[in-house]
Each structure stands twice: as structure tokens, then as C-alpha cells.
């Protein structure tokens, strides 16, 4: 049966997450203004809160599927802030290990926080164009190249570096290597300064004749694959994360929308859902638009996650959710500021920060344009060669 409600336990969890979120908001401005500082792995208030992941493990009868509920938790977590009360042990690089590593490798790095180093100064979404090279020398790989926009690059103990072992082989030559901090030749160039999500550390690295042992090659297969072996692993990483990134952007805009509704109500502007558009002011109409767009993106994300829970393919839906999540992160934040007027941009409130934070959603994890390409290829039954 079609249902869009959460059971009592789930509602309890959401409440707890939001209670936690309100604490994080107290720190949000500080870490926005002190980008050079890393928020702690665990905030002192953490012990005042229930262990949410443990709560979420048992949600009783009629529970929402785990992926769909995870997306919902992500939305509400980000509603508080991008920061986490407790930073998880794993990061995006670990998702690559899960997608492309051998069982032994999965075990070895299960509790090692690994960032993902994929983007380069000359390539982003077009990841098959990476220029970082890996050459086999005896039983060691020698890595050379530049990596930028590495999320959690400062905090992580190591990084999953994507490099080509044979440039002429295109995607088939792309492999992933785990490179630990302190490895000679793996140098931090700088911590990036950003428009938003400043509490999230973003690093740039250079690899100069950086040597890693054979067993750090994810999947342990040094042969060049036709049709892109390692590359497929990389893409699978994104398959797992697109709805998640959408969910975070949605959480951000949820915060904007609730702020708008509460503050406008205090000043006497409320949406009447009954009346037709003739009875609404332009501002009230914008408030409706913001809510409807937010709902649309939320439902598309839950849909992609629900399919995953059902074990059904969701490549198309994952891109739809990311596209809609990206759209609402831009349009929703813009609408919020349009509605709020001049005070919306005041740093007395967090809404201007959410505006800056949300803007990344349509860029990382595949830009909105890349999502549109993925969707169009599925609709048209085109390959990536047919439609670029």
C-alpha cells in the first residue's frame, strides 16, 4: 500500500536527530567563520544524546526500508547542519573500497577513514580524463599527479587515489590506490577555502613519485580492462551516493523553508492552503512554490532509495533524485532569500549560510548537467558515446 508516514519509533528518531541538530546550529556560525579549524570528531554534547544509529537499527514493525530511512535521517541531520555530532569513522573513499576492493581489503580498511581523490585541476565529472599516472616498478606502484577538491582530505588517515595505468586504454586503464598519509611523495598542497560547507575540509594534494605497495591497488587486478573495469567501480561509488547527496541538499532547504515559514508567520504572513491563487500574494505563492519543490525533490529521493531497498535497479531514479536535489538546493535557497528580503542575508541568522552551503549540491557527485545526461541516455537508450 502506498504510504508516506513514519512509524512511532521512526518519528522518535527524527525528533532526536533534530534535537541534536539544534545543538550543532550553535556551533555552525563559529566553524563557518573559522574555516581553518577542524570541528572535533565528537562534540562534548554527544553524550547527552541517544545513540541514533543504534536506535535506527531496530525500528519495529512496519518500518521504512533501511535505505529510504537513511535518506530521511540524512535530510534531518543536514537540517541541523552539515557538521555531525560525531564524525563517522568512514568517508567517501571507504565507499570505493566497498565497491571495488577485495574482501581482504574491505576488512583491512574497514575502520580507517579514507577520503576520495578523484578530481584533478583538468577534470571533474569527466573522470575518465584523469591524468594522474601509476606505474608498476617491481612490486610497487609509483604515482604522479595532482588531486584537488578532496573531501575530508585533511581529517582522513589516507586517500583512495584514482590514477591511470595506461592512458591509451581510456576508462579501462583507471585504477584506485589507497595512499596513506605520511607516504613519501604524497604531499598536502593546501586546504581549500569555499563559499559554503566550510566545516567540511577540502584538500588539494600532489603526488610526486609516491610509492605504494602492490596490495594497495583496490581489487588487486593490475590488468587493463576492456569496457572499463576499475572505472565501473568508480561509477558504482557514485551510484551509492547520488540520492545521499540529494538528501543533504534537501535537508539544507528544509531548514530554509521552515525558517521562512516561522519568521514570516511571526510577521503575519502565512500560507492559506485552501484558497486559489487569486487569493494569494506573490510572496505567499513563492512560499507554496518553495514547499512544493522541496516535496518533489524529497519524494524523488525517497523513491530512488525505496527501489534500492526493494533490490530493484535505480540508476535512473538515483540521477532523477540528484537532479531534483540539485535544483531545489539552488532554486529553494534563492526563493527563501527572495521571500525574506534584506534581512535574509544578515549573518545574524543562519539562512544565508544555508544558502551558501546548499549551492554545492548541484556541483559535487556529478553536476546537474551530468545527471541530465544520465537520465537522457536511459530515456533514449543511448550510450555515453551517442550522447555526450
Amino acid at each position, binding site marked *: 500500500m502506498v504510504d508516506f*508516514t513514519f512509524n512511532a519509533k521512526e518519528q522518535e528518531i527524527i525528533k532526536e536527530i533534530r534535537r541534536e541538530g539544534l545543538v550543532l546550529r550553535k556551533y555552525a556560525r563559529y566553524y563557518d567563520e573559522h574555516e581553518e579549524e577542524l570541528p572535533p570528531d565528537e562534540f562534548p554534547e554527544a553524550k547527552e544524546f541517544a545513540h541514533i544509529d543504534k536506535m535506527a537499527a531496530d525500528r519495529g514493525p512496519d518500518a521504512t*526500508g533501511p535505505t529510504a530511512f537513511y535518506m530521511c535521517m540524512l535530510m534531518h541531520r543536514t537540517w541541523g547542519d552539515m557538521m555531525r555530532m560525531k564524525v563517522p569513522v568512514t568517508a567517501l573513499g571507504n565507499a570505493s573500497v566497498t565497491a571495488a576492493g577485495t574482501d581482504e581489503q574491505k576488512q583491512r580498511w574497514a575502520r580507517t577513514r579514507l577520503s576520495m581523490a578523484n578530481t584533478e585541476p583538468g577534470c571533474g565529472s569527466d573522470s575518465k580524463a584523469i591524468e594522474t599516472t601509476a606505474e608498476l616498478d617491481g612490486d610497487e606502484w609509483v604515482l604522479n599527479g595532482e588531486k584537488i577538491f578532496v573531501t575530508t582530505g585533511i581529517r582522513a588517515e589516507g586517500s583512495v587515489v584514482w590514477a591511470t595505468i595506461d592512458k591509451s586504454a581510456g576508462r579501462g586503464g583507471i585504477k584506485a590506490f589507497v595512499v596513506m598519509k605520511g607516504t613519501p611523495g604524497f604531499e598536502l598542497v593546501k586546504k581549500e577555502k569555499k563559499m559554503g560547507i566550510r566545516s567540511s575540509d577540502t584538500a588539494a594534494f600532489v603526488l610526486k613519485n609516491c610509492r605504494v605497495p602492490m596490495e594497495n591497488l583496490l581489487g588487486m587486478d593490475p590488468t587493463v580492462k576492456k569496457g572499463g573495469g576499475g572505472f565501473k567501480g568508480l561509477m558504482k561509488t557514485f551510484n551509492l551516493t547520488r540520492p545521499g547527496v540529494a538528501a543533504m541538499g534537501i535537508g539544507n532547504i528544509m531548514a530554509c523553508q521552515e525558517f521562512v515559514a516561522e519568521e514570516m508567520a511571526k510577521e503575519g504572513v502565512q500560507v492559506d492552503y485552501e*484558497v486559489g491563487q487569486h487569493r494569494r500574494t506573490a510572496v505567499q505563492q513563492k512560499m507554496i512554490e518553495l514547499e512544493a519543490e522541496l516535496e518533489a525533490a524529497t519524494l524523488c529521493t525517497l523513491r530512488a532509495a525505496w527501489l534500492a531497498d526493494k533490490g530493484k535497479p535505480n540508476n535512473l531514479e538515483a540521477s532523477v533524485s540528484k537532479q531534483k536535489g540539485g535544483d531545489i538546493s539552488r532554486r529553494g535557497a534563492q526563493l527563501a532569500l527572495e521571500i525574506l528580503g534584506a534581512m535574509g542575508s544578515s549573518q545574524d541568522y543562519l539562512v544565508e549560510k544555508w544558502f551558501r552551503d546548499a549551492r554545492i549540491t548541484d556541483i559535487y557527485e556529478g553536476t546537474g548537467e551530468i545527471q541530465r545526461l544520465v*537520465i537522457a541516455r536511459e530515456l*533514449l537508450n*543511448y550510450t555515453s558515446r551517442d550522447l555526450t
Partner: protein
Amino acid sequence: MISFELTKEQMLIQKTAKEFASGELKEIARDCDEHDEIPEKLLDKAWEMGLANAAVPEAYGGIGMQRSAVTSALICEELGYGCASLAAAIMAPSTFIQPLVDFGTEQQKKRYLPAYGQDKFVPAAAALHEPHFTFDVTDMHTTARQEGDAWVLNGAKRLVAFGQTARHFLVLAKCGGQAGLAHVGAFIVPRDATGLTVESVPEKTMGLKPVPKAKLSLANVVVPEADRLGEARGIDGRRLINTLRVANSALCVGLAKAVLDASVPYAKQRVAFGEPIAKRQAIAFKLSEMHSEIEAMRWLVWKAASQLDQDGDATRATTLAHHYASRNCVLIADNGIQIFGGHGYIRDLPLEMWMRNARTLTVLEGIVAA
């Protein structure tokens, strides 16, 4: 529990409606649009299948299917995919039947529903719209004034589906002079009621052309309390209007999907500057966005419909769905024309008809009910 899972029964009904729409509606849609006519056989067939009238309880000669706004939304989407005009005509009596099932007293159901449980199409509809540009359902100009144990109705109604032939109208009016959906009353008015005038010339519209639409005027029409829907307890005006808005939005989803499903093969086959236009991002991205919006529209409609089924106040969800589905339906129909270029504007192909239908459909509060 978040779930997009349809019940087995719903999947079966969806499949039946889909087959009916592709088999019976698509082919004759243009012809009906050109001639402002709907074959009676089609209406009878749809009626026999119970698409609009399945909720009439068995006790009154109907199919007695459990009332479900989600199920109605599925039917509306599938029929709307075939042809929004014909779908609106087929489903129009639901605006009379569903409120009667939802709010009628036992006496009222017993009196009126058996006529709608038969297997031949019975024209009926709600009279909602009014002849002024600032029409708002929360503040209608048609009024109902209580006098003793009767109500006196005054006002004018427009775009009343099957007005020329309906036996009964469900006239919606503002009761007691107060605005808001809580003060909307519904009155069962027989077509021969004193003071009710139905204009014989049908009202012509840009879209949904073949749906016969009438102008009604009510001058001191006296309705006994027994024919006020729900009698003393009245109706839930919010719920009634929500069922109309949700069903209308579901038609929008179907119409938009038809546009996309025609645009994809056309864009692959139409060559410009040496390759199919689908290989240009300008076109491909449009198709992607059309697809994503249709998905979003559908889930918004489902959410509102499921809230109606769970007997909660679905007003917010309904308004969001109605706003979103209406706006995107028109945008998608418009993009469809653009992808087809000149061919989209020529009446040989359905694109221009879909655009007209989308525009008319989305300015109506409701011509069908979920």
C-alpha cells in the same frame, strides 16, 4: 512506512485502465476534439468497467469497490495518458458519485446511488465553477440561505460537465455567508427544479473540447434539507475539494507522460544538421527534465491521495500536488510542441491538442474526483 508499493488490486486496475486508454482513447482523441463529440459507446464501455462508478456500494447495485483516492488517481493518470478530454468526460460523473459515497446519509445514498449503479453511462456532475475571473472555491458567489427546513440557492455556474443531459447536479455553494472550505455546502438539485435554468447552447472551451459543458443559473431554487448532502452534519468541504484537485492533478500526470512518450521517439528519428536532434543537449536535457518532473508530479499526487485514504487533512499535500502538477503539465506540453517544431503546431499531430487540454485542465479546480 514509506512505501511506493501498489496493492495487487491497484496494479490490476491500473493495467486495465492503461489497456483501455491505449486501445480506446488514443485513436479517437483527435476526431473527438475536432467534432466536439464523444461516442456514447465509449462512455458506456468505461461505465461498465466501473472506472468512474466503482465506488457505488453493492447494496445500491454498484461494484462496491473500496473507496481509494490512490486508486482513482491511478485511473485518472492512465486515462489522461490516453486522452485528457475523454478521461475528463468518462470520469466527470465521479464528481457527483464520490461525494455522495463520502458524505451522503443512508437515505440519500439509497435514493440517488442506484441510478448510478447501472451498466449504462449516466451523465452527472458537480456544478462548481462560476462566471467571474476571480473565481475562488473558498468564496463562491453562489449562495445557499437556510429558510426553515429548506435551502434557497442563488447564483450562476459554468463549465458544468454534461449539464445538458444530467439528471441531477451537485451544486456547490457558500453557506451562511462565510468564506472558507468549511462553509462549502453541496446540494442535490434535479434538472427540473424550479428556478434552475440550463442553457441549451453548450459552452465552448480551448481545451477539453469534446466534454459537453453547460451554463447554469439558479434563481431562488428551493432545496429541501433532505437534499443537502450530509443533511444536518453537512460535508467536509476541504475533503471534497481535495478529491477534485487530486484527481485533476492525476490527469495532468497522464497528459504530461503522453507528451514525453511521443517526444522521445520523435527526437531520435528527427534529423537536423546530420544527426538526430536527441543527440543535442538542448533537446536531450529537455527530455530529462520532462521525465524528472513527471516522476515528481506523480509522487506528489500519490502522497496527497494516500493522505485522503488515511482520512487525514490532506489540504496541504493536495495544494502542493495541484500547484506542482498543474504548472509542470503546462510546461511539459509546451516543451513537447517545441521539440516537434512546426509539426507540434499542426493539427495532424496531437501536440497542440495536448497543449490546449493542459491549459484548460489546469485552470479548472476539478472536473473529476478521486
